């Protein structure tokens, strides 16, 4: 928890700094006639101040109670599950256009159900097919929303 806090505060601090640098390249203008860059410029400074304060707060809390160890009990299988889950989602985004909606949704359901522990392929394929067909029917046929067709052409 603490490593995460420090990391996040640092990232936000750097994000604020980046905002300041990038917005200073835009027209800041004066207070009388604010330019495009003024608002993000001050927001960036504010974010740096806030995240800096958080870092200081963590630092001082750490000094007072260095034995305060909040180690996380994370099951490694759960972590693996999460990573696989994310990979499936990323692959879906990558191939959404190319494979077309019905096929992608079928494959997505198939992989997610498997990752979450549905081991019997029969049930898996059945649920995935019903879900993919159902949502295709609902969105493309009933609601008339255009979905990617992919090289299959559906």
């Amino acid at each position, binding site marked *: *928890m603490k490593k*995460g*806090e420090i990391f*996040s*505060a640092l990232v*936000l601090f750097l*994000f*604020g700094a980046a*905002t300041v640098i*990038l*917005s200073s390249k*835009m*027209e800041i203008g*004066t*207070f*009388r*006639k*604010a*330019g*495009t*860059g*003024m*608002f*993000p410029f001050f*927001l*960036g400074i*504010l*974010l740096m101040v*806030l*995240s800096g*304060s*958080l870092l200081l*707060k963590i630092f001082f809390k750490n000094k007072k109670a260095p034995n305060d160890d909040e180690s996380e009990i994370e*099951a490694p*299988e*759960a*972590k693996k*599950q*999460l990573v696989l*889950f994310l990979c499936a*989602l990323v692959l*879906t*985004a990558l191939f*959404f*256009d190319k494979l077309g909606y019905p096929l992608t*949704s079928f494959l*997505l*359901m198939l992989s*997610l*159900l498997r990752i*979450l*522990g*549905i081991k019997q392929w029969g049930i898996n394929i059945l*649920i995935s097919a019903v*879900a*993919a067909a159902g*949502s295709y029917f609902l*969105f493309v046929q009933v609601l008339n*929303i255009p*979905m990617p067709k992919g090289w299959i052409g559906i």
Partner: protein
Amino acid sequence: MGGWMFESLQHLINGFAVAGTIQNLSYCLLGAFVGTVIGVLPGIGPIAGIALLIPATYGLNATSAIIMLSGIYYGAMYGGSTTSILLNVPGETASVITCIDGYRMAQKGRAGQALAICAIGSFIAGTIAIFGLVFLAPPLADAALAFGPPEFFSLMVLGFIVLSNVTGKSLLKSLMMAVFGLIIGTIGLDPVAGDARFTYGSVSLLSGIEFVAVAIGLFGIGEILTNVSQPSELLDQKVIKPRLRELYPSLQDLKKSIGAIIRGTGIGFGVGLVPGPAPVIATYASYMTERKISKHPEEFGKGAIEGVAGPESANNAACQAAFIPLFVLGIPFAPPTAILLGALLIHGVSPGPLMIGQHPELFWGVVASMYIGNLILLVLNLPLVPLFANILRIPKRILLPLVILFCITGMFTVNNSIFDIWMILLFGVLGFLMRKWAYEGAPLLLALVLGPKLETAFRQSLMISRGDFGVFINRPISMVFLLATVIFLVFPIFKALFKKIRQGQISGA
């Protein structure tokens, strides 16, 4: 004095005529039903739910769209209570309190009565609250006409500080999320001058970060990823099955609850008008009140029906009261109303003090449909409770992938853009990390939606005053808001200091 009241009642009757058309009735019904299902489903709550269904309203006119989306809003609240009672899992943050006594009642075999009193309490609260709206909205709108850019700016700042104070454990972290949200809100076109900012040639970024993507990502995908990261034993849950004939509270139950309901309505309505996550505060305040004034405080925590009736009524009253700042000021104070604001803007309606006068059929139509929605929830959803209970019994392993599919599909329908899907994945991961490291998503979302307004108000104020920052302090209303902001900022520091002094005294002595 009665002049505008009579006019308001007239408008309300017209509103019922608008809301009562077969078309709008069906949208209300659809919204309430879908909302309840969403509230019942794990991994998706009212925020992501409303956001997902905005594209479904593209073909509708503004009034019908908001009627349906509002239906989803309180439908989801009702669905959230259902999971609290049957599963001891809050469907969304405002139902946490309902878990306490509601689940106990369910364990004692009184699930039906608990669910019934939720619906009845919400209905009564809604009926009373609607009169509050009728009488308060027009004069508040008139008062808000005196608001200029400095007042709007100060009020929004106050809203952010209150929201950050009340949400989550760390004011500092919530403020950081708010500023982060404001910064990413600047991506796209400058609201005042129209220049492109931080887009670096990307066409997708020209229209800014889609708030629907952030909502679905943070609150939908993020929630699911958190679910997935937990060990698999937690994925399966035990559901209590309510018996249909139990869905009627006894006269004694009603007698016990009516006081709690009335009190809850009052508390909820008052809290709903104030910036902040009103439903959550309202339920908490109502529960504490009921416990304090009860003649049998020991019953609380063991299945006291007042502990369910009061908070649920407060919740509903707060949700309705939250529509007042949304429509009258155009400033939402909590994420669900922020999403509704986004939806209104998409439909070309800009809420604000003039809106009630210029688009009375929209405001009063929505107000009337809120009442109808409450009625629908009472009459229709209660018998459907076994259906919802069965939805809950579908294993999470199957439900979660379905919800993901729904999220990705729904997101795509907004802009037909793969870029948005990448956005929900990105914000999904962000939402997961935020939950892990205790950062709150509500300030971020609110900041994203309000950012352009805040900036416009800021720059306009300075233009009016020709660069003089005193404009925020010299105007009395604005100064009041800023003073309140300072108090809310300084209060936690004093509280912490006070606690340390007291601890020092105890351990020192």
